[in-house]
Structure formats: structure tokens, C-alpha cells
């Protein structure tokens, strides 16, 4: 069995401040498999940037074992160079002089790598064609981020670190960037992503990890997290020969769903039930309908977004943080 491209055990990162040391990362464990897109989520100050910076080799750690492609990112000399040759990084700061053009930047950065892509290939891959010969200083924020992405992939990286890669993109540019990232994934590139756009993580990530106070709160596939930590909304129309009318429906539904719902809202004869256990809701409603002689129609179910999951985790709605 081959080792995962990214492996972190019991990582601790501390910062010194005037009031003492602050622990930004507190015993984090993380393992990312080859070809996987992993999104690291967390509020500002949760420790995700510190974690990524340690993995990139840009920050020292206090303790813990960290390996990227089998090499400690804190290594020096030959190992460091070897690792740098096989990873690509999109930093939060662009880091490309405003006086040069994207074509010049790609030529220059490409010259550092052993197994580089051609400039034309990258221009096409990241869709830089329309501004490849303009000065970087004249580009929009979204165009600059595309250039950042282009520079990050010119060395044909096996592992790609994307620190908020689509910040400043308009929706269309963001979709294009997602397509690019999907293309890279299909080539087998392992990608670690941090983002503030939860729909981005939902769209791109095979797995997400939510960290808080430097610890992994939960980890898993977006759908699993949504199922485990989110509330779905089921809606259904109720009609039939119940003598109690609308009021009777409501009392009956309330009694039937007791203990398995978070919230119940009515719009006329349509009921919207918020619950994390949709199976139980379905079973109880159908049992109640059969016994009450009413019919249920126009079923719909709205799954929770990752954002809802994230917010519920942040607000402490989820007690069990042992998934990760």
C-alpha cells in the first residue's frame, strides 16, 4: 500500500504574542489520498491557513509529523528542492510583478521546473489567451487569480495547494476555475483546497474537513456530512376526508412526527418538515396518512447545503466531533 501524498499526525503550530503563545493548530491529524480533492474549511483563525503553510513548507511547526509526497516540507537542500519540483501552490498573495506579462511570468517560472508544461498548454488550460500579453498590473482580480493558478500548474505538480483560489472571480470565472480543477483531478493531481465558498467545496471536494480551534471537528464526503449533520426539508401536500379539516391535519401531523423533527411549517395544506431523519419522517407520515384516511402527494425533499452543515457545526448544534 502506497503512502498518502499528504499525511499529518498530531500537528501543533504556535505563535508568540505579547500575551504569551497562541496555539493555532492543536494536534491535527490529516491524511489525503492520491488524486483526491480535499477541502479544508473553518472560520477565520480556525488554523487552516497555518496548517496549509506548514504543508507548503512556509511555516515552522512546534511538533507533529508531516509528510508531503514522502518528504518533510521543513526539509532543506536536495529534499526541499525535490518537493518543490512536485508541488504547485496558489498563495493568497499573487506574488507576480505587475510590470511583466503572464506569458513572461509563465516562461520565467516554468524555467525552474524539471517537467514543465509548455506555455501554450497552460494558456489553453487556464484560458489566459485574452490577456496573456498584457501587463499583470492591468489585470482584474479574477484574471490575476487565473494567472496564479497557471503559474501553480506549470511545473506539472503531483500535489496542488489552493489557498482560496477563486476569491475575486465572477460566477462564470469561478465555474471555469472549477472545471480546471476538475480536469487536474482527473489527471491524478492531489489537491488541497481552502475556500470561503462552501458551494465550491461542495462542488469540487471528494472530502471536506472542518477545523475549529486548530482541531479537526468533522471530516468526510460532503454528502455524508450533509446526511450526518444537516437537516433536510421534506414537503408534502395533504388532502382527503379527514373531518377535522386543516386543523385536524396539523394536530395529526404534529402528533405523528413528535420526537423526529426540528421544525414544522405549514403553507395551506402543504407541510414542510425540517429533520435530520427523513426516513423516520417518511415512515411516520405514511403510517398516519393510512390510518387517518388522508392522501399525501407532491412529495419533495431539499437536502441541506454544506453551508448549512458548516453553520450548524459552528453554532455548536453538532455535539459529536469525533468523525475526524
Amino acid at each position: 500500500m502506497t503512502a498518502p501524498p499528504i499525511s499529518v499526525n498530531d500537528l501543533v503550530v504556535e505563535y508568540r504574542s505579547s500575551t504569551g503563545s497562541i496555539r493555532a493548530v492543536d494536534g491535527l491529524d490529516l491524511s489525503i489520498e492520491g488524486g483526491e480533492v480535499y477541502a479544508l474549511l473553518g472560520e477565520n483563525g480556525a488554523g487552516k491557513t497555518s496548517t496549509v503553510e506548514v504543508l507548503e513548507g512556509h511555516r515552522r511547526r512546534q511538533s507533529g509529523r508531516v509528510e508531503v509526497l514522502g518528504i518533510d516540507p521543513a526539509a532543506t537542500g536536495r529534499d526541499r528542492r525535490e518537493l518543490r519540483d512536485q508541488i504547485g501552490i496558489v498563495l493568497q498573495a499573487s506574488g507576480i510583478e505587475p510590470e511583466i506579462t503572464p506569458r513572461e511570468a509563465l516562461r520565467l517560472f516554468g524555467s525552474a521546473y524539471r517537467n514543465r508544461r509548455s506555455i501554450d498548454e497552460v494558456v489553453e488550460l487556464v484560458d489566459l489567451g485574452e490577456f496573456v500579453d498584457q501587463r499583470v498590473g492591468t489585470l482584474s482580480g479574477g484574471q490575476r487569480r487565473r494567472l496564479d493558478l497557471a503559474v501553480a500548474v506549470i511545473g506539472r505538480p503531483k500535489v496542488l495547494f489552493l489557498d482560496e483560489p477563486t476569491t475575486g472571480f465572477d460566477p462564470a470565472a469561478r465555474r471555469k476555475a472549477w472545471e480546471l480543477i476538475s480536469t487536474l483531478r482527473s489527471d491524478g493531481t492531489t489537491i488541497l483546497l481552502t475556500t470561503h465558498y462552501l458551494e465550491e467545496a461542495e462542488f469540487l471536494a471528494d472530502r471536506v474537513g472542518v477545523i475549529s480551534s486548530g482541531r479537526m471537528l468533522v471530516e468526510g464526503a460532503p454528502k455524508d456530512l450533509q446526511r450526518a449533520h444537516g437537516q433536510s426539508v421534506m414537503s408534502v401536500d395533504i388532502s382527503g376526508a379527514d373531518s377535522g379539516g386543516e386543523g385536524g391535519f396539523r394536530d395529526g401531523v404534529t402528533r405523528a412526527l413528535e420526537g423526529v423533527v426540528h421544525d414544522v411549517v405549514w403553507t395551506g395544506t402543504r407541510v414542510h418538515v425540517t429533520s435530520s431523519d427523513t426516513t423516520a419522517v417518511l415512515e411516520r407520515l405514511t403510517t398516519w396518512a393510512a390510518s387517518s384516511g388522508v392522501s399525501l402527494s407532491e412529495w419533495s425533499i431539499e437536502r441541506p447545503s454544506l453551508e448549512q452543515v458548516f453553520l450548524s457545526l459552528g453554532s455548536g448544534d453538532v455535539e459529536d466531533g469525533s468523525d475526524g
Partner: protein
Amino acid sequence: MVDANRWPRPFPQLVQQAAHQLRLFVRVPVAVFFTIALPLFVLLIINATSGERFVTDGNGDWPVDAFVCVAITAFTAVSATFTNLANMVPIRREEGVLQRWRSTPLPVWVLVGGHVLSAMVIAVVSTIFMLAVGVALYSVSVPAASLPALIVTLLAATVSFAAMGMAVAAVVPTASAASGIANAIILPMALISNVFIPMDDPPTAIDVLANLFPLRPFVDALQAPLHPIDPAVTPQWDRLAVVVIWGAVGFAVAVRQFRWNAAPGGTTRRRRSASQH
């Protein structure tokens, strides 16, 4: 076709980095102005107001226009290396450029070497330009026999001042502070080093102080091969030694203190419109 198993050769990478820095230099008009145009204007103004004076050193009299021209040529070489690097490297640090390069497999010495080499090229070109002006407009002459001494002096001094510039770049907190600090170092030094104000008989304290710092020894070492009466054909080793010792100290400080990341709250863009001198 790129061989995926071989590292790119370092020398072409170094040349490419230096060429990149030169391209950046010519695309920043304010840098060109302050490094080359401003010293030229200062030279023209000083010599227009100096009259037919002579400056006496140990080997005889200099026409003041030639003396000042060579002194300002030395100052130009210092601007191209020390001031230029002390200003630009912190700017690139705050723009995230250094951090970006640190993320690549490019050897650190190639990156730093590219900055230093480009600064030396600018210094050499500026020196040739200023001496050409001196030959054309003033009584400067460049004897062929003195060329080896001139070249050795220029190379040793530009490497040393580049190292000092990297040291300042390493320790300054922000890019906007770098400009002020570099000028606060070099301008007072120039005033006591016979650059703008030729002094036949300076006060002892100023003379001692000027000789402790590296600019006056460099001015002396550059003037010696261009002396109008008795041009030196060998470098002024004792004067160059002072410059090189400062360069070695600068190198040590730069290596120990160099930072790749900007301090929080840095001010990257301000220096673009700020003066170097």
C-alpha cells in the same frame, strides 16, 4: 524537449533571472530616473556652478569637473546596487514575489544572484555612461593602462555594495521604510565622501569618519585609475579592502536576517512613487 529527469542548468537560470530583473528595472521609470538620470542632472548642475577650480589630492591637482564627475560616477554605481536593492527587494517581498519563488525549486542562490547580477550590470552600464559624459563634456580621460584597475575596482565595489543593499533589505521592516533608511544611510555618507562637495582639507573628524565608511574609499579607489596627472594602473587594495570588509559584513547580515515574508501591514505599493534619493 525538456528532459524530465534533469534539473535546469543553473547558469542559464541565473542569466534569465538577471535579465528578468533588468526588464523590470527598465519598466519602472522612477527607478531609471533616480538611478541614472538624477545623478547626471546633479553632475551637470554642480559642474555648471563650480567654475575653474582645482581639487588637490596626494598625487596632484584635479580639475574640479573631472573630480566631481568620477565621484558622482561612483555614487551612481552605489545607487544602482546598494540603494536599488535596498528599495526593490522589500517591495518584492511585500508583493509576495519572494514567497512565490520560494515555492518553486529554483535554488535560492540563483534568485538572489539574479538580483545582484542585474544590479551590477546596471552599475557598470551607469558607470560607462557617466564616464562617457565625463570624457565628452569634462576633462575626464580613461587611460587604457588603467582599465584593469578600473574594472577590478568596479566589480569588487559593486558586489560589496550589493551585499550591503541586501543586508538593508533583510532588516528593514517594510518597503516604505526601506527607501527612507537607504537614503538616510547613503546621503550623509555622500556628503562627507567628496561626492557632491569636494574637500581639499576636511576637518579631521569628518576625514576619519568618511574613511571608516565604504563610500569614500570606493570614491578614492575609482578616482585613482582616472587621475589626470598620475593614473594608477593597479587597484587601490587598501581602499578596496575597506569596501570589501563592509560587503562581507553586509553578506553575513543578509544571510542571517533575510526574510521571505512581509511583516503584517507592509506597504508594498507606496515606494513606486517615492523617491530613492
